[in-house]
């Protein structure tokens, strides 16, 4: 019964999205105030009905209403509550519904915040409505989460155990809030092309920031999860699915910078529009890669060709339509304002060139194998060495240049004064390089360079913070975000260069040494969890003759799903991780055991958090400025201080 309620809500949502599309686009015309009112209310209504459908599905998962086909396939009465809820998006249909929920949420935010002119808002809502309608059709026709099973089965089949994890329970909603959130920038850009309004970048900025913050957190969560869950101690594998989330992030980062220039000095008007379109287009391509089943991975729930085809058509229409609109209307927009070769604008050009170039490398590396397979069936993979050769140097060059942006003024700047302001950071970079060369080992060129650049970034950020002492909180946003990059770089460099690894087969009572730690293997016991059975290893961390701590990595088997999973044990000091994963049974109580000591590993994700915090500060500033302003469309005087 409850399933029908969800089904009906989805149909209402589809109808409302069509109304939203029509009224929003009509409201873009000068005189049409009625249509604008309709668009605003239908955006709210769309959110209500999609939420209702999502709520119904969540309820069905929580009570394990196995009469629904989806719940039967993915839930299990024995599953802990939090994983019953995360099970809602741990499958193709539910995750598409979450996708549309986020889209509706951003549509409602566009309607509620009412930033920018009325016509702009209305047209943006119309575009958002079009995208929502397309994806609701996709859900209803190819991925309906409310299909029923007759007769109802006795028990559900469970959720992929990999997804039964607190980090991963939060990862998909966070990631979606990020990359589906880029739809708002996309809609505003398309709307700006339609109505010819220049102030769109300023109007869209808070939603761009929210999306970027969520995407940053989502990627960091995903990377952290891969680290502690997959059992190989890696934080980034250049897996196509990871790349699918990285590409929109790179473009969104470029967009945030370019939109700032458009807003502050009127430069790069058309380029910013193109980035907004490209960002969401990459989100759509990412959704296609992950959801259509062209990739085989933990993320590919479905491999139904109808879905892939439907989605491909949708995406081609969205991207093609937006680009056609761009080609048609962009020439009519006023050209960008002029700026001197040495200016913050020029720094932002470099920022954008490097970000887009690094994104292009990831794009080719991700899609080339798929294209080759489609053309002649040749199966290849493009591994980490490709990215080390292409992405890494480009991104490294970008990091070198980051500190120059904030010390250069808009329009025209003095490079020498900029350099002088950065001298202390340069000194810090030198000290870091010497310290790495003199003190630690192994010392390589790459790790020395990485540490110097990290110190350069963090030092320049500290200088920036000092220079802005007493300013509003939002003035520190860029400094924090850039420092976050440096912190992450420290983590990446530390773990890559100084990780010690131990791979051994141990019998109970044996000891082994890894890095500075002595480990004693105390054997394996069989444990029973709520919905799994586990081999739990007991490993003592020794300090002299005494046991300092017990680590218990596990191998779990989930009978309902017929799948197994490793559960690593990590002991961290905040600056160094001891990481244990249990391997296979080698007979006679002997087990393979893998141990890593990863110096600075936690900094990788701390850096991500600091970056997100920078975004939050900037967002906070925007909200405050908006409160202070009587009219949202007023010129950007309040921000001239930056």
């Amino acid at each position: 019964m409850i399933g029908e309620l969800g089904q009906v809500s989805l149909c209402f949502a589809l109808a409302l999205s069509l109304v939203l599309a029509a009224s929003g686009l009509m409201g873009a015309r000068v005189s049409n105030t009625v249509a604008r009112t309709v668009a605003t209310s239908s955006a709210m209504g769309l959110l209500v009905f999609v939420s209702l459908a999502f709520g119904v599905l969540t309820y069905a998962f929580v009570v394990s209403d196995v009469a629904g086909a989806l719940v039967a396939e993915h839930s299990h009465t024995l599953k802990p509550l939090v994983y019953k809820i995360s099970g809602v998006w741990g499958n193709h249909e539910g995750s598409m519904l979450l996708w549309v929920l986020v889209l509706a949420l951003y549509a409602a935010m566009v309607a509620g915040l009412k930033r920018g002119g009325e016509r702009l808002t209305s047209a943006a809502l119309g575009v958002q409505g079009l995208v929502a309608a397309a994806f609701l059709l996709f859900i209803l026709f190819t991925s309906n989460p409310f299909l029923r099973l007759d007769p109802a089965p006795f028990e559900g089949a469970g959720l992929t155990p990999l997804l039964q994890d607190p980090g991963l329970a939060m990862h998909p909603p966070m990631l979606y809030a990020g990359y589906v959130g880029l739809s708002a920038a996309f809609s505003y850009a398309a709307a700006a092309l339609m109505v010819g309004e220049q102030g769109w970048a300023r109007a869209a900025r808070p939603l761009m920031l929210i999306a970027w913050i969520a995407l940053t957190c989502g990627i960091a969560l995903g990377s952290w999860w891969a680290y502690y869950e997959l059992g190989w101690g890696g934080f980034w594998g250049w897996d196509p699915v990871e790349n699918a989330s990285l590409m929109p992030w790179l473009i969104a980062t470029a967009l945030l910078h370019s939109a700032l220039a458009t807003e502050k000095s009127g430069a790069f008007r058309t380029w910013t529009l193109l980035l907004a379109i490209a960002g969401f287009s990459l989100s759509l391509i990412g959704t296609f890669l992950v959801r259509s089943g062209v990739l085989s991975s933990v993320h590919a729930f479905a491999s139904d060709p109808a879905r892939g085809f439907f989605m491909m058509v949708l995406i081609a229409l969205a991207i093609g339509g937006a680009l056609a609109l761009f080609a048609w209307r962009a020439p009519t927009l006023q050209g960008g304002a002029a700026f001197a070769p040495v200016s913050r604008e020029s720094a932002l050009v470099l920022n954008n060139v490097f970000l887009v170039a690094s994104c292009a490398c990831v794009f080719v590396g991700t899609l080339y194998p798929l294209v080759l397979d489609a053309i002649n069936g040749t199966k290849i993979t493009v591994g980490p060495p490709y990215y080390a050769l292409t992405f890494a140097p480009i991104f490294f060059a970008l990091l070198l240049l980051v500190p120059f942006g904030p010390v250069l003024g808009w329009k025209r700047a003095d490079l020498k004064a900029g350099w002088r302001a950065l001298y202390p950071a340069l000194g810090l970079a030198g000290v870091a390089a010497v310290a790495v060369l003199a003190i630690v080992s192994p010392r390589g060129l790459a790790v020395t360079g990485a540490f110097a650049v990290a110190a350069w970034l963090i030092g320049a950020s500290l200088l920036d913070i000092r220079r802005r002492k007493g300013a509003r909180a939002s003035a520190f946003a860029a400094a924090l975000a850039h420092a976050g990059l440096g912190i992450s770089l420290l983590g990446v460099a530390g773990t890559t260069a100084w990780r010690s690894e131990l791979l051994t087969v141990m019998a109970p009572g044996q000891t082994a040494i890894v890095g500075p730690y002595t480990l004693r293997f105390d054997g394996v016991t069989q444990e029973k969890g709520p919905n799994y059975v586990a081999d739990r290893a007991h490993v003592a961390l020794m300090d002299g003759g005494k046991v300092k701590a017990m680590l218990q990595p596990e191998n779990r088997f989930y009978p309902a799903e017929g799948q197994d999973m490793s559960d690593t044990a990590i002991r961290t000091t905040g600056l160094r991780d001891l990481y244990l994963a249990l391997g296979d049974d080698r007979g006679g109580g002997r087990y393979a055991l893998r141990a890593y000591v990863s110096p600075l590993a936690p900094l990788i994700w701390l850096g991500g958090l600091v970056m997100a915090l920078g975004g939050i500060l900037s967002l906070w500033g925007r909200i405050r400025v908006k409160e202070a302003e009587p009219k949202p469309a007023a010129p950007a005087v309040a921000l001239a201080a930056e």
Partner: protein
Amino acid sequence: MNAKKKRRLAFAAALLAAGAAVAGVVVYGLGQNTMYFRSPSDVAAKMVSEGVAFRLGGLVENGSVRHGAGAEIHFRVTDGKSSVPADFNGVLPALFREGQGVVATGRMDARGTFVANEVLAKHDEKYMPPEVVDALKRSGRWQEGAR
């Protein structure tokens, strides 16, 4: 206007140059770092040179798994027609079993043994890597529904 046009031209030229540089790096990178997927029959047909990294996929041959004294392990990968001996020093995914599908990355050494540096994790006992299915189909040993 002229200054503006000049600036635009310079910008476009810079973009073009950057684009060409990136394209060059990408093409070079792809040329150096793509790994092909090969089945044991491909290996038998001498499609793989010694020392070149590739991915080998097939079934773990029944009765072929031997453990060494340390963490090393020896097994054979088969697609029903040919089989290739493989050495691996590392932790195996728990669902590594004889008769099950497997994909490993590594290189052929001078003795004609595949030295794996990674045996890909398989998390689902029903799951069969699509490349392996493909390889088995090509060697004629695949039966629908027989997974």
